[in-house]
């Protein structure tokens, strides 16, 4: 199709689809309605038998934990997939990073200052996933971002040499495996996959909610290492890898 034909066809189709969508949206309950049967049940279970103050955490890691198992392995598979796709092609080679040592000192200082803060915040958010907003995923992303502050602050290539992919890949796999293994352990102990086996404690305390904080920890490890790997492989592409002709210039 030519650009104009494509656009014209889109205009017609989008108008029809938009109208259909509006008709459908009119059939939804009024915005802000009190009709949430599943949500009400989930809240009752979370604050009742499961003693999980953060109900979203309870739904994510306990009541609908298998969704999250799938989600973690989507992340895991995508990171592996991205590593496969971004592997150096036969005609590419790594070049030294020119100028990587010449980061502005103020940026470097800010990076070093922000690093402990982001590590602290990230760790806190992972640990408190069962009692306050956040959890393994959110904390993991913050930890991974903190890690990248180090790249900004220091020398990229030196840091990459210091912490290569191998341990990160290992950590990512172990985090993912831990989640699946806790699920299988449920079958071994109680005959039920992903059952919340551990003592539930009392609502709002750090060690409440049974396996929810443990799973949060596993996800935290996986997400941190996974996101670091992902960003690092893109950084490698942008900074380190060149085709042979480019490298020879």
């Amino acid at each position, binding site marked *: 199709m030519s650009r104009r034909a494509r656009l014209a066809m889109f205009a017609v189709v989008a108008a029809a689809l938009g109208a259909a969508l509006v008709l459908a949206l009119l059939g939804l309950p009024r915005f802000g309605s009190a009709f949430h049967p599943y949500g009400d*049940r989930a809240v009752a279970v979370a604050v009742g038998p499961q003693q999980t103050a953060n109900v979203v955490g309870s739904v994510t890691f306990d009541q609908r934990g298998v969704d999250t198992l799938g989600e973690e392995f989507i992340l895991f598979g995508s990171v592996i997939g991205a590593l496969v796709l971004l592997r150096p092609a036969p005609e590419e080679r790594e070049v030294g990073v020119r100028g990587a040592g010449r980061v502005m000192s103020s940026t470097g200082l800010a990076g070093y200052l922000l690093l402990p803060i982001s590590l602290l915040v990230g760790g806190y958010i992972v640990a408190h996933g069962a009692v306050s907003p956040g959890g393994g995923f959110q904390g993991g992303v913050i930890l991974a971002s903190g890690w990248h502050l180090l790249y900004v602050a220091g020398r990229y290539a030196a840091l990459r040499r210091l912490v290569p992919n191998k341990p990160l890949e290992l950590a990512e*796999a172990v985090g993912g495996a831990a989640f699946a293994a806790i699920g299988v352990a449920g079958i071994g102990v109680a005959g039920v996959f992903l059952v919340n086996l551990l003592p539930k404690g009392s609502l709002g305390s750090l060690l409440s909610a049974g396996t929810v904080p443990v799973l949060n920890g596993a996800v935290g490890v996986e997400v941190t290492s996974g996101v670091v790997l992902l960003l690092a492989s893109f950084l490698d592409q942008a900074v380190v890898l060149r085709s042979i002709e480019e490298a020879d210039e």
Partner: protein
Amino acid sequence: MESLPLLCVAVPLLVAAGLAAVGRWLPRPVVDVVSLLSCLGVLGLGVTLLVATGSRRVVSWVAGYTPHGGASVGVVFVVDRVGAGLAVLVAALMTGALLYTWRYFSEVESKFHVLMLLFLAGMAGFALTGDLFDAFVFFELMGAVAYALTGYKIEEAQPLQGALNFAVVNSLGAYCTLLGIGLLYGRTGELGFAQIHQALAGHGPPDALVVVGAALVLTGFLVKAAAVPFHFWLADAHAVAPSPVCVLFSGVMVELGLYGVARTWSAALSAALPAERLRPALLVGGVVTALVASVMCLAQTHLKRLLAFSTMAHMGLFLVALGALEPASVGGLLVYVLGHAGVKGALFLCAGLLLNHHGSLDAEELYGRGREMPVTRVCFLVGALALAGLPPSGTWLGKTLSEDGLSHAGYGWAPALFVATSALTGAAVLRVGLQIFLGVGERPGSAEDTRGRHEDSETGALLSRLPATMVGPAVTLLGVGVALGMVPGLGRVAEQAAQTLLDGGGYAAATLHGAVGVHAPASDVTGFTASGVVLGLVSVALALAVAAAQLYSRRLPAPVRAVGVALRPPLRILRATHSGHLGDYVVWLLLGVTLLAGAIAVS
């Protein structure tokens, strides 16, 4: 028994994570053996489930949140014969694919195996789950891994673009599904298939929300099933993905899209959307898909692209057989899917063997060069005949059962469509088979279409001798695909499985109220009817005739050639719509959603 469905998902996930952790330090044979063993483990679990589901549905509530008074906060896995059968099919094809890759595909440590095992887990989870959102999650898992596997050969230009088109179109389809889930959640407040069914029941004719919500949810699955006009990604992705991955794409992944349509409709939507609402859209979509793909298939010379369009043509037939929403035709469809998976899997592996031996997938470039590959030659040609519907192969049995079921349901035109489609796609496969393996027909001159020439083999260097681990899976898959047609009573079992699949009320009762028993009504399906055998032979004869006409086009009588010349301009337009352009594909997808919603609304 109740924990088996979850193990089908958890075992490959655990092994995949384990391989990713320590795979780099393991010798390659260990990686191969461990992945194969976990496939065989899932196969064993699936077979156990298949046996158990003869008399009941296996219902397992994850984390033990069993329902009280028909309501639960948990996610449920509900397995019936069809779900268990799909899990078995997935594991069996994956075993064949991994055997084929024995010792090869080692560019990035064990990551190919890790991706394949995640793919296995995603497909098994999709087939076994009883929750709409959970199905979306597994759908995305198999999608994400499939995109990476499609683009695995980063040294070449085409795989990358094929993977990108595949990924964008499938993702957009999945987001449509999620929008639909949001709409249905707003209406029902539930996510489980059975819970949605229960909440939708008894509200009279469907309103705009249910119609559009259903259309959006089904869109994601129909994209996977490659129904026109959602189909454009299929040929792009199949043509470029590694051969063992194509076996899974063609043999079961696209079929899982249809399964998603069938399951979501029967287990959840059928309470508000009677079969009459959905039937026209599926039937018309199926007919158009079969015809478009048959024509496109005839026009190809690139082996994998040709096989991809053949898969799509069969998807059109499957869509028609499903569209009747009757147990007899759906039972036939189930047999057809199994037979097709074996035969098409074998054909894709044969294409891979040619690529690894000769470094090309272009039928004209390969002309006569398959002569010294005796096993591959027999395998490919028998596969082509089975695809055309030669009795008593499994593809033939599925075809004839579907035809019978459709005729009895009042669709007298269906057998003609089935015969024509199997003949045309069979002809295309036969034509290239005869060219490559026997050097039949006019030696092709300089063709304008040079796609497919000089492709890198999948094994690094070209193989002068093909190992048994590569040839064996192709022969076995073909053997199973052909032998299925001779299994006594298969049609009856399939019809009963279809009955259970289409019984939405029974599904809800089993899931929410513990009524797991399945009663299997008597069925008089036999399969071997005189008319079925005749129709099978007719389509094979037609296939041979069309293949001969293509091979000796210059010797055809003038009037026949005139018809061929007259058909060229419309064919050119049809080919031009398969432009490889992302923007085009997105517009077609949106058109498809709109038409689907419209068809459900006015039916």
